[in-house]
């Protein structure tokens, strides 16, 4: 597997970022849904502590992923795509990158506003971004939740689009992001 992207395959690095972050995001949704309705207690504290640690991991990975993306061109979209499809694909990907930052940052701000500093797996504590502010917390919580639904929606769209490309268009859009597969040579 080549380190940098070829014209018709994502690089190992890009694939690594994609699948590790995808796994973390699934974990994040699971932890948040489990914690949501619990009263403040040990169980909720434990779930949210993990949620915060994974969230900060996503933020750190997002920085490196964005840098990688800026200096490495991804493979081109298949030739047969319409203008609308291209705009939709580009828009979704830009939105993903924005949310990769917006989700952890609103979460971090939320924790600061609630005066629950963010630890990274108990190894170190991130500084608080803002002071204690109950109103700001409520606003940030709503924002964090709303963005999570947006992320959920575009993730579904993203998965459906990948499957559509694979099974309907029969192109290599899905395969070029899958490790251990070969992309067809495009004519």
């Amino acid at each position, binding site marked *: 597997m080549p380190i940098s992207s070829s014209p018709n395959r994502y690089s190992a690095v890009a694939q690594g970022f994609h699948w590790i972050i995808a796994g973390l995001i699934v974990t994040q949704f699971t932890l948040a849904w489990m914690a949501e309705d619990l009263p*403040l*207690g*040990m*169980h909720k*504290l*434990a779930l*949210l*502590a993990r949620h*915060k640690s994974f969230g900060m991991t996503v933020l750190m990975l997002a920085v490196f992923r964005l840098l990688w993306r800026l200096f490495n061109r991804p493979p081109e979209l298949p030739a047969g795509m319409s203008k609308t499809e291209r705009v939709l694909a580009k828009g979704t990907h830009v939105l993903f990158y924005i949310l990769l930052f917006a989700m952890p940052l609103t979460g971090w701000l939320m924790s600061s506003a*609630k*005066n*629950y*500093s*963010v*630890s*990274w*797996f*108990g*190894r170190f*504590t991130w500084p608080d971004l803002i002071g*204690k502010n*109950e109103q700001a917390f409520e606003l940030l919580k709503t924002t964090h939740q709303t963005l999570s639904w947006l992320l959920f929606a575009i993730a579904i769209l993203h998965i459906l689009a990948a499957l559509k490309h694979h099974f309907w268009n029969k192109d290599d859009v899905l395969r070029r992001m899958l490790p251990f597969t070969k992309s067809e040579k495009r004519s």
Partner: protein
Amino acid sequence: MKRIIVAAATAVLLSAAAAGADNVAGYTADAQQSKLEFTGVQAGAEFKGVFHKFTAAVDFAPDALAGSHIDVQIDMNSVDSMDKDRDTTMRGKDIFDVAHMPTAHYVTKTISKTAAGFSAVGALTLHGVTKDVPIDFQFTNAAGGAKLAGTAKLNRLDFGVGQGDWKSTEWVGDAVKVSFSLVLKPKS
């Protein structure tokens, strides 16, 4: 002759100590300016809280430590960690249980001089459990008024602070740091 000198010197020292004890100044802490703060660790990150309501009676003179005492009464219901959810949880039966144990009390037994200031050992009654807790502090007596400020470390589980799930130290640490700053007014 030597014996007489030793006896005389001892008598002078004893009377000085006795006079010193008589000269211990009595103070109360100014409620507005004094501060009692604690720092715990929750999910790997530190959090701070204060007790807004406490009273302190201090009899202190740096040169008459035998007659000096610090006595602090804390209203546990006045806990404030800058989050109402956490405060409600702390007041609850599994942590401070303020409904049954509304006050904590600290009174020094011995005070001694150290290189950096003073240290004391006192009995802390918290959550109905009494145990000795040492403190380190500084005493300053400037023209503006006297001040007594210091720190202590204790383990919450020694006092049964944390029942049920909260006995675990995985997400809420056992060690708690305490710091205090008492602004003293002469006892009227």
